């Protein structure tokens, strides 16, 4: 029986004492979430009734202002489509081709870089967490070497597992759609009856793939196996310790959600309060409002950096939990102890 409280306590201790793990966690957190996007702020430009209410005193704006603006900037301003088309029409086709090429190169390079960094950091973090668990000194350089050695295997393993699963899901969905639209009613009913256990099987398969891929990541990062051996060995481990893995996943998700979402929620609430205060001060004294806005905006940026740090610590903690679970399984099953070959051996393979 796996002692989860012991794993969590030891993991907390390891992460607390080895701050270099935070850096790996930060990289993973930043890369896996895709960074911060500000899509929630997209409403800023749209008319808002409450905001409009604040400007009800319309007499303050001269009636002839739009005409005057047109006099200065030209009539195109009053017709945005005309303005855009007049701006875009003289652009030669070669500009568009180069622009498209640039965007394509940027996307390809960005995706490749993200895949590399994700797998490199996963291997780096897991190997260093394992070293820390043994009481050895960890370093960013050692982790980086491990990451460089293992990233291809990690990428290929997830490609095989998730690619296969996605392909199977797409195939089943297509067959279902075809059956439900083309065949007679009797077959449809029979198919629907079969579909219920199929969906349950699908969910079970999905959960199994999650556990399998997680154990596969750990085994690739910690052991010196080939890709095929890692896949088959991790499948055996996932089969035998599915419940343990699932429970660990649930614990990690709970902790991650509680701490991660909690931090983001606190930051959002503070941000909203700060924005409201700035707005109120700005309404009475513009100079004071702008100064305070700049100062608090800087503080808000710092808090975003704090989120990355907190998420990094959580990520490091969760990964260490998985590594410790694997070590527990290893102890209970007496697997061949091939974990963590000496670093010199790793270095020679770079």
């Amino acid at each position, binding site marked *: 029986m796996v002692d989860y409280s012991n794993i969590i306590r030891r993991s907390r201790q390891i992460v607390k004492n080895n701050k270099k793990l935070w*850096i790996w966690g*930060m*990289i993973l957190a*930043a890369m896996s979430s895709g960074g911060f996007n500000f899509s929630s702020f997209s409403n800023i430009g749209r*008319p808002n009734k409450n905001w*409009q209410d*604040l*400007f*009800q*005193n*319309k*007499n*303050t*704006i*001269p*009636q*002839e*202002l*739009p005409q*005057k603006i047109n*006099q*200065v900037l030209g009539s195109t301003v009053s017709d945005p489509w005309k303005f855009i088309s007049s*701006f875009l029409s*003289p*652009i*030669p086709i070669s*500009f568009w081709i*180069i*622009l498209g090429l*640039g*965007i394509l*190169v*940027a996307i390809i*390079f960005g995706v490749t*870089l993200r895949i*590399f*960094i994700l797998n*490199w950091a996963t291997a780096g973090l897991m190997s260093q967490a394992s070293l820390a668990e043994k009481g050895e000194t960890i*370093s*960013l*350089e050692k982790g*980086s*070497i491990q990451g*460089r050695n293992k990233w291809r295997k990690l990428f290929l393993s997830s490609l095989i597992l998730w690619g296969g699963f996605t392909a199977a899901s797409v195939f089943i969905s297509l067959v279902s759609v075809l059956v439900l639209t083309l065949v007679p009613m009797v077959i449809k009913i029979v198919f629907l009856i079969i579909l219920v256990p199929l969906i349950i099987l699908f969910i079970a398969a999905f959960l199994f793939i999650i556990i399998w891929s997680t154990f596969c990541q750990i085994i690739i990062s910690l052991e010196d196996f080939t890709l095929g051996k890692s896949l088959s060995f991790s499948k055996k481990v996932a089969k035998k310790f599915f419940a343990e893995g699932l429970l660990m996943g649930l614990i990690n998700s709970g902790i991650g959600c509680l701490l991660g979402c909690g931090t983001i929620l606190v930051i959002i609430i503070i941000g909203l309060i700060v924005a409201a205060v700035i707005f109120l001060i*700005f*309404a009475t004294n*513009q100079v004071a409002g702008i100064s305070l806005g700049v100062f608090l905006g800087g503080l808000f*940026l*710092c808090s975003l*950096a*704090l989120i*990355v*740090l907190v998420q990094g610590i959580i990520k490091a903690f969760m990964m260490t939990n998985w590594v410790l679970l694997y070590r527990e399984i290893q102890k209970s099953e007496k697997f061949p102890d091939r974990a963590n070959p000496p670093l010199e051996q790793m270095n020679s393979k*770079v």
Partner: protein
Amino acid sequence: MEKQYGGYILRMLAYLFDTLVLWLVPLTFLFAVVSFTNTTTDFWVSLLWLFLELLLFQWLLSYLYFIFTFLWFNGSFGKLVAGLSIEKENGEKPTLGDAFIRFPVGYLVSGLALGLGFFWIIKDPKKKAFHDHFAGTVVVKKNSPLPLYIALPCLIGVIFFLSTAIYQTGIKRNLWQRLGTEVVNFSETVNQIIRENTQQINKKNVPPTVPSLPIPKPTSPSVDFNTSNQPLEKFF
């Protein structure tokens, strides 16, 4: 002899030099292309679009620049000018993998959390940033910084060429005169609005009517807020 490591300020200056080179050279090229091409497209529109395209390719250019200068010269031109050199800590020759880890990957990671990885140079005993740790490199002081009489004239030359190109193109295309006329027109119209507005204020003897942020509910009965105004959306 003990190695001397490059500090934060020196490395930051070297990076600034590199950024300047990486922007000035393509910008000059870009301006020259637009200036000396007989295109029917409006000059500013062409320039704007080429600039947009430059923005898209500039990062790629900088990646290649930092990777290959590290491999060929043990450091970017900024570092060479500052008398710095990047070395592998174990004395080996740097590989393409090291360069890739150091530049796009390492710099990205160092930039996380408001550039914590760059500020790490200040704290680290060997003055290593995160990207140095990942790539197993150190930045050492190799020579005294390159004499100013070489580095500075080069930079001034680039700036001079760029400004001359801009000025000449401006003359050739009558841009400065057009810009001047439009500025005059703009200021005249703004002044006219202000004059008319002031007259209106004096006539009505009401508070200033310059567009401003929320003003409390009307206190003067002379203004009819419900009927005399157009909807606010019309102004935007």
